[in-house]
């Protein structure tokens, strides 16, 4: 990957690499609370069927995953575990923060035990707002992430802005 990192990869090869990366996203499901069920519905139920998007929702461990979906309430007690598993993921890795809780604390914005936003701890690529977001919203988040990967210059990773589903501000 030395070529990729240094940005010396030919454009066409980068495109090819990106297309293959975006359609083979192994996603680690970090289900924490109510939102985990909507994530389960999006990933596990026949109605939403995420695999048609080229997303494989069943890696055995974070070490095999490209993408982690943090869905639900992150508490201060949970954060070290999230950080540890995030660090085990191989680069390039992506994070989707699903639900108001993971985005900003949600209904527990004034609670003493809830972390107000997972983005204080790990970098987030896509925010999916809602409490809970519908499974369709999560699917759109994944499609937007795939678009981002498609146009990404691997060397430039992390210089862009995060995406917000729906275009509005985070609820």
């Amino acid at each position: 990957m030395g070529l990729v990192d240094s940005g010396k990869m030919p454009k066409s090869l980068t495109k090819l690499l990106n297309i293959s990366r975006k359609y083979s996203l192994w996603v680690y499901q970090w289900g924490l609370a109510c939102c985990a069920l909507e994530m389960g519905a999006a990933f596990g139920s026949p109605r939403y069927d995420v695999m048609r998007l080229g997303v494989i929702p069943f890696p055995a461990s974070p070490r095999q995953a490209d993408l982690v979906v943090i869905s639900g309430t992150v508490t201060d007690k949970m954060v070290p575990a999230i950080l540890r598993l995030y660090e085990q993921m191989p680069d390039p890795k992506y994070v989707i923060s699903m639900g108001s809780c993971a985005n900003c604390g949600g209904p527990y914005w004034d609670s003493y035990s809830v972390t107000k936003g997972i983005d204080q701890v790990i970098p987030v690529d896509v925010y999916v707002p809602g409490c809970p977001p519908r499974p369709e919203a999560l699917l759109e988040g994944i499609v937007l992430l795939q678009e981002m990967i498609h146009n990404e210059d691997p060397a430039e990773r992390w210089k862009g802005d995060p995406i917000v589903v729906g275009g509005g501000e985070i609820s």
Partner: protein
Amino acid sequence: MTTDHITAELDINDNEQLRYIAAQAVDARVNVELETEGMTLNIGPQHPATHGTLRIVAKLDGEQVIKAEPIMGYMHRGYEKLTEVRTYPQVTTLVNRIDWVGSFANEVPFILAAEDLMEVEAPPRAQWIRTALFEMGRIANIMLFLGDMAVQLGGVTAVFYAFRDREFVLNQIESVTGGRFHPNFNRIGGIKDDLPAGWIAETKSVMQKVRDFCDEMEDLVVGNEIFQLRCRGVGVIPAEVGKAYGLSGANLRASGVDWDLRRDGDSRLAWKDLDWKVWTHPDGDSFARYWVRLQETREATYMVEQILDGLPTGPIMAKVPRIIKVPAGESYVQTENPLGVMGYYVISKGELTPFRVKIRTASFSNMSIAPWLLEGVYVPDIATILASLYFILGDIDR
């Protein structure tokens, strides 16, 4: 002659003794070679068998669990403190996220407690619609369990059926309340809206679908030999022990205790007017717990149909002031929620917000039996037992 006889007998005894000692020595040697050191197995906080973020630290001897300790608090969101700074109508937004799978059922006891304090009573139609949605919340909740427990034991198929058919129930809840999960639909003195047109007929057909799903599970899971082998006799809770640990709901009914607050409590909801049956099972093992929940789901569909047939007409809101100030006092209301008994102890000092709310959740007590139950079982049975106890993490940690 006699002495000969005695020596012969002695010989036999000596030989036996020698053989016995030799055998002991061999055993001892084998044991030394195979001796296992105690091992600590950490399950969770993020593990599919724990329904979210329960962490279990198990001390193992070989395949056997010597001691298992659940570590909670990974999902503690501080409900009891937060309710002190939310006004009464805002509290329902919070509390329906406690047991997030059967959300509607979480609001009801709190609203009933607040109504007690304000001395208002919701009109009959509102109570009946509440009961219908309560039972539909139960159906949506337990359907997930029915699929999920099979997954824990390695039968992945069932969960896809559960997710497929659960969507229909959620659709119906959504078309009344506007939310798939968190309806926030109860108001002090009634409910927010009346039923939409055509909803009753649709719901009846969905209830039929749910019953078909139950039949499917009966074939696919209950009738499955592997499932039975892994569940029967695993995690047996005798009725007395269950009561001592404060179990409630299907966990206790699966141990043969015929106790259901919907029938035995003094609830204002419509259960008393319906014709239904409390299911129990004498065995108290994991299989019984699955079986009882399956029957309860089917029973609930009949209850919903009866409610829809007998729905009284009239208003859906009692007269309540626009700004809700609850008079000073205390009140405790508990109901039979999908996971067991849930109660709210509300203390009011006559202000906009409650002074103190104590929440009794079913899963917390149901979980407290886990160390007792997991002692001495084999590692694969941990998944069976935890799945069959059926807890929701938000309901444990609050």
